[in-house]
């Protein structure tokens, strides 16, 4: 809501505050002032000039040579505007004047003729193009007759006004009107204000003799008032009305439209003026539209209606979509003589629906949607009638013809001083509460500590004790509230085990050299099914889809964090940052239904993606590019950290390198995958060799068992033995390790691969794997024979299971 301080000051004195200071008070008591701006950039020295004569410039077709009386004398000015004419009152910037943009006016010669200033358009005076009346858009502005040459044009045009923009919360629809703002300001400043009563001089003819009103759906339209105004002369509205509309960002059109808009701003009540002759009947019937019914609205758009929309009809044909926009057919035009003026209360939800369906958000619909003041509907009609009589020469017919089922009753709310103080933590006295209610102009009855308050209809948002509490608190001032701490029983705050583990895992990844990322959960359809771990793919029927996405890039919920990480990698690589190691703890969304009806399962994943150099220490010739085993090491480290054994099984996953990918298993189930991104996909992303991992963190946390017991440090020495085995090259090293551990149980505690060899010293298709074995008995020192025997056993087993030969 844009509020003109000049206008507001007519209702209530605010001039004794600096605009910023005033804004601060209003903000602190309830309504946030978003900006304080002059209505136009500063201009000085612009006066009204009377065009005494206007002739064709002798040397230029498109210029006029004018003699203009500016009060202190007559100036010769060359003017290029097409609409300048003798007898007009115009805005003249004489030499010495300064226009917006610090544009200084000087005496000059134009095509050989002296020009002592400039005749201004509204745009040149700093008025926003969109607020300039249509007839003055391509030329100079022409004042109404009644201004005097030499008058200050800036002040006449209200260009010295200050506009404050109020950021209204949805509950404060009462401040969508100047009157509402004035009540609020009065309460904030502790000053007086009351909306002036309307005084309409009515003619003798009765409105009801010309029109009748019928309402078919009282819930959607509890009040409809019709005023009839005859003998209207459509023309420009007075300057002060135009100025106030401009200040509020509404373009002046003609006196009838301007007056309805003016009252909308003043009272917060939207009105609509129909050309009564073009309305085509003496009967106003409001009803729900028929499905498929059509109307051409003021903006010349044909609109198809449904039963959800309320329309104003002449008994047959729709002439307006209630509360949203009038019809083109009965629009007020230059020759309009009789007006049917509508002042109505339309149901907020209904208007909201219509405005939404037709994409028509207007000053009117916004106010209806939030609920107008039931006490001011009819008064607004009276106010407009009064103005139309004065400024459009209208004869106001007697009475308003109305349908009226509107609830105008004032709510009563009981509050108690102690209760207010208990809830606020304050010690406000009952006298202070009484004074606050008076400032708010909420009538009340008081009995000791108890108040029974009547809430004026303009404050529809105040419905219960807590609302009154807020009114009292804000006027009392939140600054005056003490600082206290909750007095209730204290509880030990803390992290749950899962939250602790999450932090532990994050710290681990970061210690391992990975940076944490946060990516979007919403992704493209294509990416939503890419690089998905098997156990997720098996559970998910399809990725969850948004009903109405805003873009294709964010239309589906992800089933894997990996593609998002790759996207981040690609972003960096494209910016020449080639060495990236990222991880994310993020959610994926798994729905077992192909048509979603239930909330999907939100599963936490721990995922990572690495590309480029892992270690670069060139001057000592150390360099390592990320490979499978760098990434596997990170996963194994996590396995150790959480003490959850993991195994790796070669696997094929779409989008992954077919020879360098594994499923990760824990507790006998797949919990994720690891490997190199498929080179084709790498190329698509612009990535070099890139490795990823993806783990079901939810499952890991479930499997985690906190180890409380202490395991004794071995007191007896261990025995270390190496073996080198020759096997077929497709025998997995991990399988042999398993066999060694099993056959060597319980003495073998640790098995490490320390060499892998393939080449000229071995026959084709063979490889040699060397393991270091650690034997230990925690109870005593091992004897050589025991180790020997266990070792023999191991060799026997690997021979049987893997056809492994001891390398000679």
């Amino acid at each position: 809501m844009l509020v003109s301080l000049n206008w507001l000051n007519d209702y209530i004195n605010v001039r004794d505050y600096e605009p910023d200071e005033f804004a601060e008070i209003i903000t602190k008591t309830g309504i946030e002032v978003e900006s304080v701006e002059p209505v136009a950039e500063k201009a000085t020295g612009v006066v009204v000039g009377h065009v005494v004569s206007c002739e064709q410039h002798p040397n230029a077709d498109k210029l006029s040579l004018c003699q203009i009386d500016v009060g202190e004398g007559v100036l010769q000015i060359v003017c290029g505007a097409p609409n300048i004419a003798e007898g007009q009152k115009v805005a003249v910037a004489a030499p010495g004047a300064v226009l917006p943009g610090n544009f200084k006016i000087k005496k000059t010669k134009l095509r050989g003729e002296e020009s002592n200033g400039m005749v201004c358009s509204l745009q040149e005076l700093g008025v926003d193009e969109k607020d300039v009346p249509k007839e003055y858009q391509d030329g100079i502005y022409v004042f109404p007759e009644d201004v005097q040459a030499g008058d200050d044009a800036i002040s006449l045009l209200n260009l010295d006004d200050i506009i404050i923009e109020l950021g209204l919360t949805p509950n404060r629809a009462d401040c969508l009107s100047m009157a509402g703002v004035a009540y609020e300001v009065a309460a904030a400043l502790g000053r007086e204000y009351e909306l002036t009563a309307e005084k309409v001089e009515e003619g003798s003819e009765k409105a009801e003799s010309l029109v009748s009103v019928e309402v078919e759906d009282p819930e959607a339209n509890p009040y409809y008032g019709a005023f009839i105004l005859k003998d209207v002369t459509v023309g420009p509205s007075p300057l002060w009305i135009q100025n106030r509309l401009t200040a509020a960002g509404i373009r002046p059109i003609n006196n009838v439209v301007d007056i309805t808009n003016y009252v909308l701003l003043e009272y917060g009540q939207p009105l609509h003026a129909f050309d009564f002759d073009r309305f085509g009947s003496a009967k106003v019937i409001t009803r729900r539209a028929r499905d498929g019914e059509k109307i051409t609205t003021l903006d010349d758009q044909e609109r198809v209606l449904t039963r959800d929309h309320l329309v104003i009809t002449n008994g047959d044909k729709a002439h307006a979509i209630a509360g949203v926009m009038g019809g083109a057919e009965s629009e007020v035009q230059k020759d309009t003589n009789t007006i049917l003026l509508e002042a109505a209360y339309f149901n907020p939800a209904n208007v909201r629906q219509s405005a939404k369906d037709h994409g028509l958000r207007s000053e009117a619909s916004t106010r209806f949607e939030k609920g107008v003041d039931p006490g001011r509907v009819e008064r607004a009609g009276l106010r407009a009638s009064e103005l139309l009589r004065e400024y459009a020469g209208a004869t106001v017919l007697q009475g308003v013809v109305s349908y009226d089922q509107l609830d105008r009753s004032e709510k009563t709310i009981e509050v108690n001083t102690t209760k207010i103080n208990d809830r606020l933590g304050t010690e406000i006295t009952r006298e202070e509460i009484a004074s606050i209610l008076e400032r708010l102009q909420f009538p009340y009855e008081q009995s000791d500590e108890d108040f029974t308050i009547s809430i004026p209809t303009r404050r529809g948002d105040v419905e219960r004790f807590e609302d009154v509490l807020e009114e009292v608190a804000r006027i009392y001032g939140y600054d005056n509230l003490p600082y206290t701490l909750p007095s209730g029983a204290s509880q030990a705050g803390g992290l749950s085990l899962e939250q602790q583990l999450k932090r532990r895992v994050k710290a681990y990844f970061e210690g391992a050299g990975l940076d944490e990322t946060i990516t979007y959960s919403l992704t493209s359809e294509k990416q939503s099914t890419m690089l998905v771990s098997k156990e997720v793919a098996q559970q998910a029927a399809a990725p969850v889809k948004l009903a109405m996405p805003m873009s294709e890039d964010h239309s589906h919920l992800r089933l894997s964090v990996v593609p998002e990480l790759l996207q981040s990698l690609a972003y960096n690589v494209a910016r020449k940052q080639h060495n990236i190691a990222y991880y994310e703890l993020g959610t994926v969304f798994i729905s077992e239904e192909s048509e979603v009806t239930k909330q999907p399962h939100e599963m936490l994943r721990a995922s990572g993606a690495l590309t480029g150099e892992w270690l670069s220490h060139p001057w000592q010739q150390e360099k390592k590019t990320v490979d499978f085993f760098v990434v596997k090491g990170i996963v194994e480290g996590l396995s150790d950290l959480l003490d959850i054994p993991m195994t790796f099984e070669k696997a094929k996953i779409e989008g992954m390198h077919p020879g360098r990918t594994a499923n990760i298993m824990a507790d006998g189930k797949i919990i994720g995958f690891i490997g190199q991104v498929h080179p084709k996909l790498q190329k698509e992303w612009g990535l070099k060799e890139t490795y990823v991992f993806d783990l079901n963190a939810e499952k890991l946390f479930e499997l985690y068992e906190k180890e409380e017991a202490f395991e004794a440090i071995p007191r007896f020495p261990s025995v270390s033995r190496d073996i080198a085995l020759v096997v077929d090259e497709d025998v997995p090293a991990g399988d042999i390790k398993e066999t060694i551990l099993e056959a060597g149980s319980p003495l073998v505690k640790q098995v490490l691969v320390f060499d892998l060899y393939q080449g000229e010293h071995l026959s084709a298709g063979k490889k040699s794997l060397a393991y270091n074995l650690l034997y230990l008995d925690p109870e005593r020192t091992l004897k050589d024979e025991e180790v020997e025997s266990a070792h023999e056993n191991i060799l026997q087993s690997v021979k049987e299971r893997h056809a492994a030969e001891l390398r000679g």
Partner: protein
Amino acid sequence: MKERLQELKEEALRKVDAADGIQQLKDVRVEYLGKKGPITEVLRGMGKLSKEERPVIGQLANEVREDIAQAIEVKQTGLEEAALEEQLEAESLDVTLPGRPVQVGGPHLLTSIVEEIEDLFIGMGFEIKEGPEVESDYYNFEALNLPKGHPARDMQDSFYVTEELLMRTHTSPVQARTMGLKNGSEPVKMICPGKVYRRDTDDATHSHQFTQIEGLLVDKDVRMSDLKGVLNAFAKQMFGAERDIRLRPSFFPFTEPSVEMDISCKVCGGAGCSVCKGTGWIEILGAGMVHPNVLEMAGYDPKEYSGFAFGMGPERIAMLKYGVDDIRNFYINDQRFLKQYHKA
């Protein structure tokens, strides 16, 4: 003979002193203390001496031997140390060459901020609760006093999945869910951080996905001054003890009264500058007393129980605290951005 021994001693000590290498020292030892050396010779010739002289000379000879041996030892130690010194000197490094880099990662700035806030409220006895990101219309709106058709639903245009399911637009549904589990009788003291979603086009100040942290305290006799006290404690710890707070009236459907909290501007100290748009204050969070409808829907009797709630955006806090000027930075994951905030 005495004189001879004294001469030998002086001569030997001179040579020891003059020796500048281990070998030379060895030669001196062989020369004077060896089996064929002059002292041995002297001792051999002792037979010619008188009974009285023999022990005196014998003792003297032994003393000379020992003195020479000791001098050699001292000298040898010195020479060895010098040799080691020389060797170590030869092994010296250019200490200005770079070390072998250790790969260290770090948390995302938002995580750091969220955890800082979490820890702060844990210190005040709050628990941390989480909830689903795909939320039911009921918990996201209705349970928070936003029935269907409520105009305030405009404020948060949402990504719906079905008519009844949507991407949560705030973390408030976690409050409703947590309260709902308490049978209307236990106090609640929690904060809930998480991702939220709105139908916004991504630009410098809007993001369709962002982070929120909400807090809730429900108990008997909770006062608005308690909210002010808790928020003040939070603001002072998070932004600095010298910062002031102020509450301004506002509106949220799930709280009544509702306020917004500003902190005094760090840049200008409250005098007004471009950061605070001349007001001296910077908006940090929204808060209020839990709306009685919300308490009722969660099973609490609003006559007996009251509470407060607050909500803030870690992105906004990060933007204010670190001067981040584009919200998209939090989600693009440019390494140069992420690494900036890894310093302890």
